[in-house]
Structure formats: C-alpha cells, structure tokens
C-alpha cells in the first residue's frame, strides 16, 4: 500500500501522514460500534434489550448521540487540579494505545510501519498508556482518582511481565519479531495457526496472554483501576466531556489492539481459516477484523459474567500464577525447539 501511495502522490511525507491516519478509519468507528455492541451484548445477557430507540434499528446510533452530547459538554477542569497535566493525560493515554496500531498488520497489503521489531515495539509503546493513567489520577487531585491511578500502575506493571513472557514463547517458535512475517508463517489451513503449534505450550501461552491482556486494558475481572462500586470511576472520575470521550476511545482502541495481538500471534492474523480459499488483501482485512471482534466478544462476555478480584488477589494471580506458568511454557517450548533442532 505504501508503494502504491508513493506512486500516486509522489510525496513521501504526505504518504506517511496518510498511512498514520489509516488505522483511525477503523479505530473511531470501532469505538462507536464497540460501545453499542457491548451494551447490546450485556443487555441480552441480562434479559434486557439495551438501547432500542435512537436511530431506529436496535438503537444503532446511540453511541453517536452520546459522542455528540459529550462534544457539546462544558470544558471542565476541577479547580484544584493540575491543569496542564490534567489536559495532557487523555492525549497520552490515547497516543499510547493508538501508536500500537502502527505495527499491527491489518492485511497482507497493509501495515502502518514495517518494522522488523514490530512485536517488541507494540509491547513497549502500549506501556505509555500507564503513564497517562497515572497522570490523569494524579492531576485530578482527587483521592479516588489517585487510588485508581496507583492501582492501574501496580496492575499494568505486574501484568506486563506475563504478557512479555508469553509472547517470548511465540517468538522462540517463530524466530522473528516481525508481525507481518509471523502472519506469513501461519498461512494455510487452521492447524497452521500458532495456537495449535507445540501443543499444549502455545495454547497455554495464548490463555496466559489473553488473561494478562485483560488486566492491561482494565477489563473485568481486572477492572480495579476504575471499579465503579469502589472508586466511582477511578482515574477518570474527574473527567467529563470530550476528555472523557477520549479516555473511552483509548480504552476501546486498546481493547482492539490487544485483541489484534492475540489474533496475529495465535490465530493466524489475516490468514483465511480455509487455506487459499477466500484469501487476498481484502479478505485478509475481513478475517483480521472478524477474528479481532471475536476476541473482543470474549472480553465482553467475561466482563458481564465475572465479579472483580481484590487487589491482593490480582497481584497474587499475576506474580504467583501467571508468571511461573509462563516460565514453564518458555522452558517447555525451548526444550522442544532444541530437540527438534530448529
């Protein structure tokens, strides 16, 4: 796609700007759709209907109406807040989650930036989000927000470790950090997907990555930073209007980013599950987004089923359950790879 645009526009800077904007075409509609989708799923799980009126068919435009409402809201900064940091925080949060999209291969023909350390880049850049969350909690000058910020720091830092370790197991098998290359290695029928390789090690790595990524994006049962029955809304209690909307957008962007990593690393990325059948750049996009949405469905499903963990239980699971298991997987995979002489 980059070469095509270069030929078309003959201006490298413009092409890079365009390439950077392409994921936004997906992220913003996805956030709008995702909120609506989550409402509908939760409603149907709970014997309700959810939004039904706005826009006609099943309240499809409810979140658009909500976003418009948020845009019109007064620009509110608490008097005691640290104004600069308070304003800056939502942008850092969103920048952190959006930057991850640069290295995510949407299709065989499109990836924002072809870096050979793509996976490494995604893991590192998404850590920027936690800086934004701490800033938001600290700058709000509210005890509740501070609690949320401290929780998110403890949580995300603890869960980065199992995330990195479970990804390491995959890297040991494929021998590359390049996400596009990892996708190409999985081309073919379903059993070529990495989740079925070196069974059961990579399957377990997938489970660990998924659980830890739930904690990374603050979803139930790890939604402690914003637990509404304890901390009201945690780090974004004091945010309103467009800044709140930006926080929300970042949350959904982050949700899709981790789902995209799950899909790319374990479920064949943009590959068709039927081998050559229904494959190609556009079908690749379809499979990638479809699989991503399926993973998000599981996230939503868990959210509306499970209660929340306590802080000490959360760190217990992170350090004493997930990390030892990830090490065991790394050992197992390492031994297997050595034995196979790859």
């Amino acid at each position, binding site marked *: 796609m980059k070469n095509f645009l270069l030929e078309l526009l003959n201006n490298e800077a413009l092409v890079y700007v365009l390439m950077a904007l392409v994921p936004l075409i997906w992220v913003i509609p996805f956030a709008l759709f995702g909120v609506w989708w989550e409402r509908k799923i*939760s409603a149907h799980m709970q014997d309700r209907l959810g939004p039904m009126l706005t826009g006609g068919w099943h309240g499809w435009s409810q979140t658009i109406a909500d976003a418009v409402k948020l845009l019109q809201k007064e620009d509110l900064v608490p008097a005691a807040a640290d104004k600069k940091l308070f304003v800056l925080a939502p942008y850092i949060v969103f920048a952190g989650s959006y930057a991850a999209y640069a290295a995510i291969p949407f299709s065989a023909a499109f990836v924002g930036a072809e870096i050979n350390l793509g996976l490494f880049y995604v893991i590192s850049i998404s850590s920027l989000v936690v800086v934004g969350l701490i800033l938001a909690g600290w700058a709000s000058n509210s005890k509740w927000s501070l609690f949320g910020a401290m929780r998110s720091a403890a949580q995300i830092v603890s869960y980065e470790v199992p995330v990195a370790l479970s990804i390491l197991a995959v890297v040991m098998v494929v021998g590359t950090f390049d996400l596009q290359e990892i996708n190409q290695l999985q081309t073919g029928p379903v059993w070529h997907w990495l989740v079925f390789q070196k069974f059961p090690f990579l399957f377990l790595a997938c489970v660990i990555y998924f659980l830890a990524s739930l904690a990374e994006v603050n979803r139930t049962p790890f939604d402690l930073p914003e637990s509404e*029955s304890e901390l009201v809304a945690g780090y974004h209690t004091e945010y309103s209007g467009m800044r709140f909307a930006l926080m929300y957008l970042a949350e959904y962007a982050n949700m899709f980013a981790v789902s995209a990593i799950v899909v790319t690393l374990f479920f064949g990325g943009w590959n068709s599950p039927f081998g050559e059948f229904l494959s190609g750049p556009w079908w690749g996009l379809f499979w990638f987004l479809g699989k991503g949405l399926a993973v998000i469905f599981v996230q939503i499903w868990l959210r509306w089923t499970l209660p929340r963990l*306590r802080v000490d239980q959360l760190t217990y699971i992170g350090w004493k359950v997930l990390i030892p298991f990830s090490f065991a997987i790394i050992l197992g995979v390492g031994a297997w790879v050595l034995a196979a002489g790859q």
Partner: protein
Amino acid sequence: MDATLTEVEKGRRPTTIPGLGRALRTEEMVISMGPQHPSTHGVLRLDIVVDGEIVADVIPRIGYLHRCFEKHCEHMANYQQVIPYVDRLDYVAAMSNEFGYVVAMEKMLKIQVPERVEYIRVIMAEFSRIVSHLIAIGTYGLDIGAWTPFLYCMRDREHVLDIFEETCGARLLYNYMWIGGLSHDVKPTFKDKVLEFCKYFRPNIKELNDLLSYNKIFIDRTASVGVLPGDVAVNFGVSGPVLRGSGVQWDIRKNDPYSIYNRFDFDIPFGKGEKGKVGDCWDRYMVRVHEMEQSVNIIEQAAKQLPEGDVQSAIPKRISPNASGPRRVRYTCAPRPRRASWGTTSYPTGEVDR
C-alpha cells in the same frame, strides 16, 4: 471537612515499612465515602482510614435515612393511619413491616383475624422476604463487580411485584395489611399465579448459585472476610440473616411462632463456614439464598392450604389510642403501660419489635 475528620487525620502517624527504616515510609489517608458514593446509595457515610489498599479504620456516620417516623406516628389520629408510615421504614420489604405492626396491634387490641387473612399475610410476608433478599444479594454482587446477577435478581423481583400489584395496586408501598384484616381480598387467579411463581423461581435460585454464589472469584472475595462470631453476634443483639449467618439457629418464626408459622414445614438456614470461617460474608450471603428457598416452600404450602373466607370481617370499626379520654392531637402510639403490647416478628433483615 468537619472537625472530627481532621482530628482523625491528626491522630495518624506516618508508619515505616519494617526493614526499610525511615527511608520509605507510608502515610495513612482519610477518605470520605458516601453518601453520594455509588455503593452507599445516599444513606450512609464512612470515613475510611486507608493505608494504601488496606483499610485501617472505618468510622461510620449514620442517620442519613432517619425520617422521624416514630414522631409522625405519634401524631396520627388513630392506629390505622400508621400503616403507610411503617411501609416506608424499609421500602424494599414493606409487607413485612406492615405484618409486624398489625400483629402487635392485634395482640394489643385482642383481635382474632380470620384464617384466610393469616394465610394471605404469610404469603405476602414471605414474598416480601424474597424481594428483600433478592435486592440484598443482587446489590452485594454489584458491589463486588458482578453486574449480571443483579439484573437477574431484579428480573425475578418484578414477578413478585406483579403479584403485589395485582393484589393491592401498588408495587412498592402497599398499605395492604390492615389491623384485623386486609385492604383487598386477593384476585381469583392469585393462587395459580403464586404456585406458578414458585415453579418459576426455584431454577432461578440454582442459576444464581451457578453464576455468583459458587463463583471462584466471589468465594475468594467473601469467604473468611468480615467474620462475626456467633457469641459476639448474640451479645450485640444482632438478629435475622446476619445472626443466622454467624451459625446461630435462631428464627423467630420457629422459636417463638407468631401468626400461623407453626403450621408450615421449613428449615432454618444457618452459616456453617462451608467456604471459610463460620460467620463470614459468604455465610451471611448464603443464608439469604437458602432463606429464599425456604420462603418458596412456605409460600407453596400456604397457597395450597389457602382457605376461603372474608378478609375484612375482623377489622374494628373504631380504633383510638385513648378511647376513654378526649380526642387530643397528641395521641401516642407508644402504648401506655396498661395496654403494653410487644409483637416480635421475623423480618428479612432482622427481627422487628413493635
């Protein structure tokens, strides 16, 4: 910030983490939770002293729900007028409140109510217990982060409220039980609807257990937490599911039966420390779940035995707190010594003495 809160803050000294000396010290922080906090529902404020994530101390500030009903009741012209007030004492279980009040009044006025009235009252009071427990369980799950069980509880509660509505026209505050009778007789379809509900509700309790009660996360968060030992509970005068959750088998419906509770076959659920210690949060929660099962049993038995008859024949024509004296504005509901009456009834959240 009020004066007491600052005093609390002043009293707290920075603490040091053992082994790290004074280089790294933590400080306790006081946060005010409620009354506008989502889990305190506008009725409670807690000053919480926290050391990081550990709650070091809690100072409850109560009184947000006190509406001086006893004073209102003293000014009522007759005893019947008090019933709408007892409804509002706890709007989640209004029928049980009415039951407690009318039982005490009937004892004082020596009124024998018809059989049919007794049966309908028991059915209504047990329905009220189910409704109250559903809200207790649902919001308990909600505070732990489980949304769906709460809405399942509300769904089941709606079915009970439908039966209430059909009977007396109100869904929350009924004014249904009158001294000596009931405001309306039940509809002809009442019995079928009640039995249908019992059939509908039993699998839903199982669903609730699968979804919440035996959920690993839920057990982890509630078992061995907030233990109230049985002897402490008795000494502090705790009653109801909280007392039974502490392993004390005391239920006024069994131990000192009023109305017609001695005619029904039911068990007293009590905390056994199944998942942790006796008297922990999980036990208190589970007692409520089991009590709903027992209430369904009582309702089923009562509905099957429901006799025919008039529900208003025993309602006294004139009730005055001081029939012999002149009518004054200031009648008192707190009975004079010669008419002292003390009715104790079982109530979803504890015993009621009126």
